[in-house]
């Protein structure tokens, strides 16, 4: 049993890592990955919602009638999103302003609903919690990787709550930042190329 819980957790880190293996939750991945800091904040918010909704749905899975399950899942997820929204507004106000519309949109980010339907409604509390946490952490890692790629190429720096002192121009003096990597087109192309690299590795 203990081993299977570890497996539920680790599958989210590579085997089913969103948004690459599970092509869900692309919009926030594109929208908030302009820097590692934003990506980390968004990833943690999604992890909280995912783990919370998975646990609650798995607790209530025998109570919720099958016919109205989708509506019930959405309301549970929306409740957790409201909690996260208010926590972020209270404690990390600047991050809340940067992420903006993407926080309420975690409701329609397909990952929590997809996991509720495919996993939490069929499994016990511990595996569901492990599944939610694993996928959440995997999502956070993907967002951070995309954020790092875009920030390094687009700005030449890497900032995680205070500059790390890392600057690409000091390593390669002739480096010119590609400003477009920080803009919308860079998000699509960056994610597309990362997906290509992951496909190539897993072949």
């Amino acid at each position, binding site marked *: 049993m203990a081993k299977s819980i570890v497996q539920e957790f680790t599958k989210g880190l590579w085997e089913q890592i969103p948004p690459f293996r599970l092509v869900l939750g*692309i919009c926030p991945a594109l929208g908030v990955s302009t820097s590692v800091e934003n990506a980390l904040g968004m990833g943690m918010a999604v992890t909280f919602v995912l783990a919370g909704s998975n646990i609650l749905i798995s607790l209530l899975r025998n109570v919720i009638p099958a016919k109205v399950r989708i509506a019930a899942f959405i309301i549970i997820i929306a409740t957790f999103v409201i909690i996260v929204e208010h926590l972020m507004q209270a404690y990390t106000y600047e991050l809340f302003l940067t992420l903006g519309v993407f926080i309420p949109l975690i409701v329609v980010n397909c990952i929590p609903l997809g996991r509720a339907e495919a996993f939490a409604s069929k499994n016990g509390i511990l595996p569901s919690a492990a599944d939610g946490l694993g996928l959440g952490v995997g999502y956070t890692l993907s967002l951070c990787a995309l954020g790092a790629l875009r920030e390094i190429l687009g700005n030449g720096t890497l900032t995680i709550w205070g500059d790390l002192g890392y600057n690409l121009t000091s390593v390669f003096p002739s480096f010119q930042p590609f400003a477009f990597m920080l803009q919308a087109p860079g998000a699509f192309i960056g994610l597309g190329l990362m997906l290509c690299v992951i496909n190539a590795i897993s072949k």
Partner: protein
Amino acid sequence: MGYFELIIACIFVNNILLAQFLGNCPFLGTSKKMETATGMGMAVIFVLVLAGTITWLIYTYVLVKFDLVYLRTIVFIVVIASLVQFVEMFLKKSIPALYAGLGIFLPLITTNCAVLGVCVLNIDKEFTFMQSLVASFAYAAGFALALILFAGVRERILLARVPKPLQDTSIGLVTAGMIALAFYAFKGMV
């Protein structure tokens, strides 16, 4: 801001798909064929105009009035889900031709983040009723425009020989990046 500038801003400058990154799941999912792309675009225009105005009315006359603003997210998603269900039943009964065209796309719209996104943006930008009506329509038109353009390009890509790891979603995202680059030229217009 006049209505004309608002329309230009919502369709081109702040295009919901390519500049604001909302609604990308249907963008990648329904863009493999021109027909499905057109159907999805029309369904989004139809639902978004309704959802944008109805959520605005509920927010202004119910949530603000009774000091329930913190329930915004949950109320909006419930309103959108029931609206989609209602529209589906209404079309099935009264306009079967339109239902046959939009049918399968309607349930998908509930989880289309462009719809909830625009409803939230209308409130965040403090639009008036008329402004939200116009903005909802213009955002949806921008969605349809980008989706149809993208489907056109993607139909051509099917004929090209794409390297194996780049196939499908990967090349789709890179193509979307190229179209976003084209739309990027509108930046600063309004």
